[in-house]
């Protein structure tokens, strides 16, 4: 619309809304990231999941201090005590950030305010990765404090047994776990279904695979190339060999990247009812 210049005297009959036709600027990605981060934690479930992470982290750290022998008061033990609840619960938050748009039907508003689902989902993906990294920084930080405190209470020298490269691989493992939650959310688009799938994926299938490997030699040979959970385990065991990296890559491709790609394709086509 072209701007019309009308004398103020005509203001009484000039449609105010039609006149105020300033073409608005687009929505920058930075703003979308801020919005999606806020949406992750401003729901009741988001809030309680956060609270439970904090509570479990405190409980776990205290448990290490109280129950662990002096020899077990190591940085690794403190960091994993704090990291474990995050690794279990944060992927659920990642899942819900996607599924709630469908299950809670908030997508009706989200996708009309930003009618580009790809942009919204990408923002959610970036936020998911960022939260995974931040969670690891926090747990490594609090772990360090716990280690110092625990060591000084026990009157021993603190043991720093996580190398910088290990910190990176552990962080990668956390991010991968977040992405698994995200992938299941994108693929299933139903909160209850995706969370059940997440627990099956992460806590039911791995023991079954282990069980199979102990009794069946053919699976024992195949496992490093087929079992994503098994290959993620490498990330906690120090430096990875080139062979291990490629095994992680192959399993990650099959169990994470391909389903994520299918999910992203479906998300853009599925109707938000």
């Amino acid at each position, binding site marked *: 619309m072209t701007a019309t210049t009308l004398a103020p005297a005509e203001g009484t009959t000039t449609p105010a809304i039609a006149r105020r*036709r300033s073409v608005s600027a687009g929505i920058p990605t930075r703003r979308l990231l801020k919005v999606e981060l806020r949406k992750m934690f401003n729901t009741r479930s988001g809030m309680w999941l956060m609270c439970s992470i904090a509570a479990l982290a405190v409980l776990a750290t205290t448990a290490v201090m109280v129950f662990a022998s002096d020899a077990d008061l190591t940085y690794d033990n403190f960091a994993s005590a704090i990291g474990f609840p995050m690794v279990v619960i944060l992927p659920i938050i990642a899942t819900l950030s996607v599924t709630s748009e469908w299950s809670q039907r*908030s997508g009706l508003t989200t996708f009309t305010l*930003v009618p580009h689902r790809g942009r919204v989902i990408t923002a959610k993906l970036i936020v998911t990765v960022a939260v995974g990294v931040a969670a690891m920084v926090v747990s490594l930080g609090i772990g360090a404090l716990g280690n110092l405190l625990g060591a000084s209470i026990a009157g021993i020298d603190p043991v720093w047994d996580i190398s910088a490269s290990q910190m990176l691989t552990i962080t990668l493992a956390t991010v991968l776990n977040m992405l698994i939650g995200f992938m299941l959310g994108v693929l299933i688009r139903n909160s209850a279904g995706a969370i059940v799938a997440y627990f099956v994926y992460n806590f039911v299938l791995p023991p079954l695979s282990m069980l199979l490997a102990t009794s069946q030699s053919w699976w024992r040979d195949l496992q490093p190339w087929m079992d994503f959970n098994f290959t993620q385990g490498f990330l906690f065991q120090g430096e990875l060999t080139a062979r291990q990296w490629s095994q992680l890559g192959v399993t990650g491709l099959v169990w994470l990247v391909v389903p994520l790609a299918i999910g992203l394709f479906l998300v853009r086509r599925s109707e938000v009812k």
Partner: protein
Amino acid sequence: MITVESLTRKYGDHVAVDNISFTARPGRVTGFLGPNGAGKSTTMRVMVGLTPPTSGSATIEGKRFVDLPNPGREVGVLLDASAQHAGRTGREILTIAAMTMGLPSSSVDRMLERVSLTPTEAGRRVRNYSLGMRQRLGIATALIGDPHVLILDEPANGLDPAGIRWMRDLLRGYANAGGTVLLSSHLLHEIEVIADDIVVIGNGRIVAQGTKDELLAAAGTVVRTAEPVALAEALTHGGVEFTTSDDGALRTAADPAHVGQLARDAGCALTELKSADGAGLEEMFLELTADTQREGAAA
């Protein structure tokens, strides 16, 4: 202005919206009227880019909705007041919308006040909201970007009579200020009271559209006379079809001016001549949608 051109949306073999065209003009309230399942919501979903059309187009000021840089600042949308995250507070839902559009947080308080949600209510989670409160929150989300086009699907649902009155005044004010308002309803009375233009849809097709006055006029004429036989002859001679009511009045689809002229030419004195708008839009609506409605007699 909203322009819908030859819009069709199919789901498999089912045709939800069948080649419809209409415009909603600025400065006017356009009522989108139809029975449940007629295709109103599907049409509105296509307008806001949630559902791709099978063919045809829907544009806002000539642009497709998905091409609007910041849609919330130009088009206020309320499709379903229940489609809000039950675990968020009303204030948070409005805050996210304001953030997405790039509005200051002060706009949230102003808007909550405008839709009469108290700070206590706004602090509660939507799970505990009544439908009326959700509706107010949804309207707040639609209005907060100060858009010049409003697309509202059944906005009066769940509002109490005072709320409906408030909504009516609000939409009227918006249209009077030059905004374009499109609202759907299956509540005939609501549309009749507020709309300037009406689009009636049944089974995915538009069955009637025009200004409210035109549509009411098109509902026809009721005429009475002391000499019904002479009048009937005059009407038949003039090519006007009519029916005779039990009370002796003749009803016809022709407009009153034409009927009066025929009567005068026949020298037939009338005792009554009026538009058949007494029954209102409801009769017209039921009549127009009778053969396309689910409840209708065998079509």
